[in-house]
C-alpha cells in the first residue's frame, strides 16, 4: 500500500535521487544554498553553466521527502534556463508538480532560496556583462 502523504513523483525522486550525481570536475558552476540542518531542512544546489544557460544540476539536501524531491526536481526543471529564470523561480511550481500538501509549503521556500542564491552566484565568464 502506497503512503498517501506523498505523491508518486515524490516517492520516485526519493527512491532514485535523480540529480544527485556529481558534476564534472572542470564544470563552471553557479552554486546556491539555503536552510539549516539543525532546523530540519538544508538544500545545496550546483548548476553547471555553459553559454549563459544551465547544462545540468546537482543537489544535496537534508529534510523531509518533499524537500528532497523538490531539490531533485529543480535540477531537471531548470535545465536550459538562464540566470534570470533562477532569480525569479517560485516554489509554487515545484509544489504543483510534486503535489506537495499545504502543510509543507514552507519547506519549499528553502529550495526557492537555494535556487535564487545560485542566481546571485552566477559565474562571471569572459566577455560577459553579468
Amino acid at each position, binding site marked *: 500500500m502506497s*503512503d498517501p502523504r506523498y505523491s508518486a513523483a515524490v516517492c520516485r525522486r526519493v527512491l532514485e535521487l535523480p540529480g544527485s550525481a556529481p558534476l564534472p570536475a572542470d564544470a563552471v558552476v553557479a552554486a546556491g544554498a539555503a536552510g539549516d540542518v539543525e532546523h530540519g531542512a538544508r538544500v545545496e544546489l550546483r548548476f553547471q553553466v555553459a553559454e549563459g544557460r544551465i547544462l545540468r544540476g546537482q543537489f544535496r*539536501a537534508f529534510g523531509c521527502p518533499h524537500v528532497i524531491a523538490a531539490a531533485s526536481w529543480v535540477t531537471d526543471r531548470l535545465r536550459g534556463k538562464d540566470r534570470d529564470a533562477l532569480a525569479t523561480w517560485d516554489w509554487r511550481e515545484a509544489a504543483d508538480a510534486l503535489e506537495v500538501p499545504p502543510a509543507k509549503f514552507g519547506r519549499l521556500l528553502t529550495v526557492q532560496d537555494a535556487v535564487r542564491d545560485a542566481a546571485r552566484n552566477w559565474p562571471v565568464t569572459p566577455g560577459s556583462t553579468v
Partner: protein
Amino acid sequence: MTIVYLDNAASTPMDPRVIEAMLECCGPGGDFANPSATGHEPGRRARARVEQARAEVAHLVGAAPEQVVWTSGATEADNLALFGAARFHRAKGRHIVTSRTEHPAVLDSCRQLEREGFEVTYLKPGPDGIVQPSQVEEALRSDTIIVSLMHVQNEIGVVHDVGTIGRICRARGVLFHVDAAQGAGKLPIDVGRDCIDLLAVTAHKVHGPKGVGALCVRREPRLGLVPLLFGGGQERGLRSGTLPTHQIAAMGRTFAIAAEEMSLDAGRISGLRDWLWRALSAVPGVLLNGHPTQRVAGILSVTIDGVEGETLLHALGDLAVSSGSACATTHAEPSYVLRALGRSDRLAQSTLRLSLGRFTTREEVELAARRITTEVTRLRSIAPAAAPMPAA
C-alpha cells in the same frame, strides 16, 4: 511488498492460542452471553470465562482475582486510577508526583487534574531515561497523595525500579500507581512485593486483543476510588458497562501464556535486540537511547545522526517501525521523551523505535539491519556536508 513488522511496542499480532480463546466466546454455541446474566446457563458460562480470565490476569501480577477491574485498555485504567484516587482522596492532599516521560494517558490526566486544583510535580529523568527512586522520595510532600510512574518507558524501553519506589511510597502513606502497559507479560511484576496500589495493564502489547485492559486495585486495606463510568454497576461499581466476554477471555489467555513463556520470550527477544543493536551500532553516528542494560527485551530506540527522520521512515517503507510513541506520531513535534533525555529537536526527529515481539524472527531482524544501513548510507550520500560538495 512484504513488510517486516517491528512495531510491537505499538501493538502486537494476537497469538493464535489467544484467537482461539476469543473465538470460543463469539459465535452461537460459544460462551458469548452477557456475563452479568447469570440467571441462565449461557450467562453463567460467560461469567465463568470472565472469572477464569480475572484469575489469570491476577496471577501474572501477583494480585488476588478480586483486585482486577476490567477496562477498555491501559488508557482507561490509568484514567480510573488517577482520577478515581485523586478525587476520592482530595481531602487528604492535592499533590501528585509523576515524570515527564509518562504516556499521554497519565500526562494528560495529570494536566486535567491540575485544572481541577491539584498540583503535579513532573520529575525529569536522567540522560539514561530513568527516574531514580531518590528523586521520587525527594519530591514527596506532606500533601502528596499519589505517585504515578510507568514500569517500562514505551519509547525507549527503560525499566523503572518500581519495587524500591513502591516501598518508599508505602512507607510514606502515598498511593503508588504504575502504568505497566509495556511491562506486564514481559517482565516480572508483583503488586504485593512491589507495594503497588494501582496497576494498569493491557492485552494488546503482549499478543492479546486491542480494546481490553485492567486496573489492579489494592484491596487490603481497601483503597477508595471514584468511578469514571456509571450505569449497570459492573465491576463492583468501579466500571459500569457490559463486560466483553470474548476480549476478557482472550486477555486471560494472553496473560496465562505470558506467565508460562515470559522468560523464554524475553531471552530470545533480547538476543535478537542485542544482535540488531550490534549491527546498527556499526554504522557511524547511530546512538542508543536510554539505559544500556536496564531495559525491556523488545524495545530498541536509536537516533541516527545525519538523516532526517521522516525521510528515513519513508525510505524504509518495507519496515513497520515507529519514529516514536505511536500515540504521538500524529504530531509533527519531536518526541517529548527524547527531548526530556536531552536530545536536540533534530536528533529527536532522527530516531527510530524498533520493537520486537514473540513472532519476530532472526531473518526479519537481519533484513531490518541491512535495510536501515543501506538507507542511512544512501540518504547521507545526498546530505549537505560541512565541506563543499565534491566534484566527480
